[in-house]
């Protein structure tokens, strides 16, 4: 499945990093990075991250 983040509304709370650390992380400059294509095994974690994002900035496809 595809993972995208709408960086125009993301506020870098890092709740996605807490919910799905193997998919979302912060780089050394504090920017958000994520795995754009994840396999089915990670679906539950990624959905939990999208659910928990306070800005609802995570798009799953």
């Amino acid at each position, binding site marked *: 499945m595809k993972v995208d983040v709408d960086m125009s509304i993301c506020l870098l709370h890092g709740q996605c990093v807490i919910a799905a650390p193997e998919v979302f992380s912060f780089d050394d400059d504090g920017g958000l990075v994520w795995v754009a294509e994840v396999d089915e095994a990670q679906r539950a974690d990624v959905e939990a991250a999208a659910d*928990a994002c306070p800005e609802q900035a995570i798009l799953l496809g």
Partner: protein
Amino acid sequence: MTQETLAEAPYLDVAAPTFSIRSQAVLDAREASWYARTNYGIAVLRYDDVMKLLRHPKLRQGSYRWPELSDVHGGLFARWWGAMLLSQEGETHSRLRRMANPAFSPKLITELRPKFQALANKLIDGFAAKGECDFIAEFTEPYATGVICDLLGLPFETWRELADIAAEMGLALGVTFKQDLATVEAATARLLKYAEDLVALKRANPSDDFVGMLVQANADKSQLSDQELLDMIVLAIFGGIDTTRNQLGLAMATFIEHPEQWALLAEQPDLARAAVEEVMRVRPTVTWVTREATEDFTYNDLPIKAGTTIHLFSQSATSDPAVFPEPGFDITAERKPHFGFGGGAHHCLGHFIARGDMTEALKLLAQRLKNPRFNGEVKWLADSGNTGAITLPIAFDPA
């Protein structure tokens, strides 16, 4: 910047009973400097710095040592305080937050919305004909507590008892914590017992509601222990009642000062969601959040020592004319985000619930209470820390 300029930064006496986060002294300090010195560490005054420091990896939540600083060692409250989500950092915080997330999902709010509406209407029915009420005693307090009852699956009639227990436990946050210790301990014990009974009920009758979701998370004890499950329920009760009560009271006070905005909201109920955001920008109940430096670091050329307390002044930051050039209160304006729910790792876990219940309340209130006005003396909490009205007598024309 050198230590010399640190000594020259503005000074704010945040512990003075007359201190106000909206005072000229704070505005002047924000104009002069991005931070001020205070009785306890520094205060950060401007938007961009509050935004950055809420997410700073060298800062942790700052009230975790409160019982110890109040000379309270051990006991039920101090144990709970140290163990609960807000006081935790790093891996433990992440694990607890992951376990709690499903119970706070925005999906559950959709189901709760009709309950919020029914509760708001029932409370308004209770005083509408009079054309006046104490908005706190007759609306925001029973509403905020009633929402928590709905969340926990408790009958509405439980609200008074729950509100009283939370208020007694809340004495722990005051300067007289040590004197009030016996009351605080008794209230903490009662709330934990409440949580235990709820959990027992849900274990017997599994469900997908709030407590049901937490009980499911607790099925794997290595992820959420029995004690952590109870602590989380206590935190939801304790952290959800006064905040919502105060924020809705501040909303009404703000709208009374801007009657044309209230009329607009009555005409266009869809603005209620935006109204919540605009109220929380200009009058957040949580006027500052506290952080503590975990190691020495430098920020904006200012050396900050490990252990320094840092108050992030949300109220001051989101009224900064440098960032919000259109002054005033306007529920139709496009604004940058506020910090009323904090931000970063500790961003309010209950915000979907709080945003949902306040939206429904404002929508119905604007429909049913026309021309609200102050109707007697308003009693306020200090205009700092967590603020709001204690009594808010209003008069209105029933619709």
